[in-house]
C-alpha cells in the first residue's frame, strides 16, 4: 500500500475531496457491521471512499491494483456472518451507497437493472410504483441491505420459498474486475443484446460472483427478473403438537411450490411470537403467504395449502401470524432485538425431507444448554423458511451485547449449532467464518480451485483478501 496521504489525494481527485476520508474516527465508525464476529477484532480501514459512479469505482480499483492496496466493499453494512476477510487495516473501504440508481426497468426483457448500492427497500418500492414487483424481495435487513451485498453474500430473501435464493433471480451482473476492466455477464455478453437471460453465450460467469464475497471483483450493477405487481394476497397459519406432522405439512407445502413464503416456527421460536400457543401444547407453528395478480389464483393456491395443512392435523390459527411478518417485511428483526437482544444467525440449508432430522439435533442441543443460556441472557429462536426444493434452518441466537459473558456464550452456541447443522448434512448458502471449518476448509480441491481462480483474476490479491479462506497474502 502506498502512503496514505498520497492515496487520499488520488482518491479525492476521482470522487471529490468530500467523499474520501482518512479521519481516524470516521474510519472507526466503519469498523463494524451487524455481526458479532467483526467485533472480536474490529480494525478500521486506512481510507473510506464513497464513489458516485461506476467510472469512479473503476478508477478506484485501478489505483488499488496499481498500489496493491486491499479493498473491502460495503453496502448497507448489515452482514452478520464475519465476511470481511481478515480485516486488514491498510486497506480502502468502498462505501457503495451512493451507487444507488435504477439503471433500467426494461419491460421488453422483464428485467430491472440497478446499481449495487441501492437498498432492497427502495428497489421494491420503485418497482411497485411502476406496476412491477421483484421475485425475491431482499434479505430480512432489506431496508438497509443493498442489492450488491445480497448477491455477493448470496442471501436468502423474502419469497425465497417460491423464487429461491437471491442468486436464482439474477440475470446479469456488471462487475469491476481487479484490474479495473468491466465484465458484463449473461446475454449482454453480446454488446448488441439486452440483459434478459443469464445462461447464454458460454459458461455462467454470473455464478462465479454470486456468494463470492467480492473476492473476484466488485459487483457494480445487478439485473434481476421482475414480475407484474401482485395486488392480491392470502395468509394462513396452523399449529401442530408434534414435529412429525408439522414436517409432513411443511414438506407437502414445499413440494407443491405454490407459496411465496412458508415458515416453520419451533417451540423456542414460537415463544418469540406466540407464547400462548406453547402454553396450549403446540410445539410448531407453520405459516404461509401467497400473492398473485388475480384473486382467483390466490384463492386456488390458498385452498390447496389449507387442505394440506388440515390433512396433516394442523390446527388453524389467526392468519395474522403470517401477515404481520409479510406486510411489515424487513421490520421484524430490530423489533425482536428490542425485546430479547442482539441476534446472530445460524441459517443454513437442509434437504426438504432431511430438515426434521437436523432440527431435532439442533433443538436437542439448545435444550441441553438452556439453563446456562438463561443465566447469561442468551436466547434462541428457531425458524425454518422453505427455499424452493430445500428446507432451511435458522436458529437466531440472541444475546446481551453489553455483557461479555453473554457474547462469549452466544458465539459458542452459534458455532455449535453450525457444526450440528453441517454434520447433519446441511450446507450454507451465505459464506462466513461460522461455516468455513465445515465447508471450504474440509474440501481441499474446492478451496484450491477457488485460490487458482483468485490468482488468475486478482494476482495482487486486493479484493477482500482473506475472505472465503483464501490466503490474505500469496
Amino acid at each position, binding site marked *: 500500500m502506498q502512503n496514505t496521504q498520497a492515496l487520499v489525494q488520488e482518491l479525492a481527485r476521482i470522487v471529490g475531496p468530500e467523499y474520501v476520508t482518512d479521519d481516524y474516527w*470516521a474510519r472507526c*465508525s466503519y469498523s463494524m457491521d451487524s455481526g458479532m464476529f467483526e467485533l472480536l477484532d474490529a480494525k478500521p480501514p486506512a481510507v473510506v471512499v464513497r464513489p458516485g459512479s461506476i467510472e469512479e469505482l473503476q478508477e478506484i480499483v485501478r489505483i488499488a491494483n496499481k498500489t496493491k492496496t486491499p479493498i473491502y466493499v460495503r453496502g448497507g*453494512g448489515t452482514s452478520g456472518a464475519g465476511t470481511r476477510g481478515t480485516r486488514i487495516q491498510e486497506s480502502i473501504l468502498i462505501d457503495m451507497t451512493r451507487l444507488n440508481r435504477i439503471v433500467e426497468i426494461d419491460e421488453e426483457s422483464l428485467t430491472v437493472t440497478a446499481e449495487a448500492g441501492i437498498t432492497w*427497500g427502495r428497489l*421494491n418500492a420503485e418497482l411497485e410504483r411502476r406496476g412491477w414487483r421483484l421475485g425475491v424481495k431482499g434479505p430480512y435487513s432489506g431496508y438497509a441491505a443493498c442489492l450488491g451485498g445480497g448477491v455477493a453474500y448470496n442471501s436468502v430473501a423474502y419469497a425465497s420459498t417460491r423464487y429461491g435464493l437471491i442468486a436464482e433471480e439474477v440475470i446479469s451482473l456488471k462487475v469491476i474486475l481487479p484490474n479495473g476492466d468491466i465484465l458484463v455477464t449473461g446475454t449482454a455478453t453480446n454488446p448488441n443484446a439486452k440483459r434478459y437471460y443469464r445462461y447464454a453465450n458460454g459458461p455462467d460467469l454470473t455464478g462465479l460472483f454470486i456468494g463470492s464475497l467480492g473476492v473476484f471483483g466488485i459487483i457494480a450493477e445487478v439485473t434481476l427478473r421482475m414480475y407484474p405487481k401482485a395486488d392480491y394476497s392470502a395468509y394462513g397459519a396452523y399449529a401442530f403438537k408434534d414435529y412429525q406432522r408439522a414436517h409432513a405439512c411443511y414438506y407437502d407445502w414445499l413440494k407443491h411450490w405454490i407459496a411465496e413464503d412458508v415458515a416453520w416456527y419451533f417451540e423456542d421460536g414460537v415463544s418469540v411470537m406466540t407464547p400462548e400457543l406453547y402454553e396450549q401444547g403446540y410445539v410448531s407453528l407453520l405459516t404461509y403467504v401467497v400473492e398473485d395478480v388475480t384473486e382467483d389464483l390466490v384463492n386456488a393456491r390458498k385452498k390447496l395449502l389449507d387442505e394440506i395443512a388440515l390433512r396433516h392435523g394442523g390446527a388453524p390459527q389467526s392468519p395474522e401470524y403470517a401477515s404481520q411478518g409479510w406486510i411489515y417485511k424487513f421490520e421484524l*428483526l430490530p423489533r425482536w*432485538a428490542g425485546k430479547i437482544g442482539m441476534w446472530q444467525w445460524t441459517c443454513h440449508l437442509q434437504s426438504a425431507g432431511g430438515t426434521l432430522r437436523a432440527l431435532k439435533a439442533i433443538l436437542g442441543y439448545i435444550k441441553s444448554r438452556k439453563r446456562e443460556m438463561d443465566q447469561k441472557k442468551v436466547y434462541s429462536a428457531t425458524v425454518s423458511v422453505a427455499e424452493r426444493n430445500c428446507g432451511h434452518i435458522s436458529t437466531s441466537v440472541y444475546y446481551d451485547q453489553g455483557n461479555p459473558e453473554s457474547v462469549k456464550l452466544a458465539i459458542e452456541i452459534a458455532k455449535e449449532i453450525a457444526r450440528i447443522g453441517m454434520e447433519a448434512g446441511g450446507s450454507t448458502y451465505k459464506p462466513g467464518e461460522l461455516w468455513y471449518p465445515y465447508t471450504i476448509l474440509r474440501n481441499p480441491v474446492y478451496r484450491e480451485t477457488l485460490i487458482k481462480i483468485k490468482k488468475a483474476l486478482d494476482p495482487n490479491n486486493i479484493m477482500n483478501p482473506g475472505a472465503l479462506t483464501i490466503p490474505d497474502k500469496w
Partner: protein
Amino acid sequence: MIDVLEEKVRQMVYRCTRCGYCRLMFRARDNTERVCPLMDTTSGFELYTARGRNWIARQIFEGKLGIEKMTQDAINAIYACFICGSCTEHCLVLDPRSWERFPENVYDDHLIINDEITRYLRSLIIEAGKPPSEIREILRNYQHFNNPYGKPREKRGEWVNMLDFKVKNIAEEGGETLLYTGSIAPYDERAVKALLAIAKTLKLANVDYGILGSQEIDSGAEVYDLGEFGLFEEFAKQNLEIFKKYGISRIITISPHDYNVFKKYYPMFFKEDWSKLNIEVQHYTQVIAEAIENKKLKIKANLSNKKVTYHDPCYLGRKNSIYRDPRIIISSTGANLIEMKLSRHNSYCCGGGGGGKWYRPPERTRAEVERVKQAKETGAEILVVACPICLTMLEDGSKTAGVDIKLMDVAELLMTVIQ
C-alpha cells in the same frame, strides 16, 4: 444529571443492532424516503448518521477511543446533527410494551433515542473543551445574555410595545398563564412578527395570559442540545424557582423546542421539583386549535384560492406527535392544504435544530434549501410553519435557493382571516 443520562445512553448503545435503518431506510408503506437529512447535506459517512455515532459512543464507553483524541472531523460530524429525531422515529428497536401500537408508534416508544447519544457525545466534547468556535460563542451568549444572539436581556420583553393592546407582565401584575416566548422569537426580526400574530390571536381567543419579559429565563432547550448540561441545569433550576415564585400553572410556548424541554426533560431530570408545580404545558398551536374548535374566534374562511403546504417542525410533530392542531388552524382558513411528500413523522428538518441554526460543518447543500424545494414541488404558494427556528431557517432557505414561496407562521395565516 449527567450520570442519569450517561446510564441511559450506555443502555441505548448496547441495544443498537447496527441494522443501518437510521441511515438508509426507504420504506414504501409510509413514504419514508430519507431518514437522515445529513445523507443529503454532508459527505454521508457513517459518522454523520446515528449508527456510526452510536458505535463511536460504544467504543468510548469501552475505552477504545478517548475523547481527548477526538479529531476535528469527528467533532464537526457530531455537531452537524440537527437532532431532528428522524433516526429515532425510524428505529425499530421498540419497547415491547408498545408493540400493540405498531406501526403507529410514537417517539417515546423507542428504546434507542439517538438524540440523547448525540447530546451525550457533545457533552463530552464540551467537557474536553473542544467544541467548534461557533458553538463556543453561542454558549457564551447564552451564559452571559441568556439568549444565543448576545442581545441584552431587557430586550426580551420589548416586543409587546409593538402591540396595540397591553400584555400584562406576570412579575409585576401576577397571572397564572405564561406566554413563554423563548430566546429566538423576541430577538429575531422575522420571528417577532410571528410572535405578534400569536399574541394577537390568543388575545382574540380570550386567553388570559401574561409574560415575564426580561425576567424570563431561557428554557435550556438549545444548550441541552449542544451538550452544555451544566448550563441547562442552571437555567432549568432558575425557571423552577421563577415558576414557583409567580405561581405559574400554565405555560404556552412559542417554540416547539421549549415545549419539548418543559414536557420531557424537566420532568425527567427534576422529577418532584417539577411535578409538584403542577404546570400544564401547551404549544400555542394547541391553544389556538382548541379556540377554533370551541368557536372562540370569528373566522371568515376565505383562503380557498390559496394553495399552502405545512412543514411539521421536528420538535412539535415527530417528538411530540402534535400533527393535528396546526392543520386544524390551516383548515379553518379555508386554504387548500397540499401535503409535502415528506410530512408528519417523515418531515424533513429545516436544518435549524440541534444548533444547526448557528453552526454547520462544510456541506454539499443546506437542509433549509432542500426543504423549500420540497415545499415548492407541491405547487403551494405559501409555506406554513409553527416554529420560530423553522420560520427563520426556511425563509433564509427560500432566499438562498431563489424559490418563490411565501413563509408564514400558522398564526400569521390565521390572522389574515380573523374578523
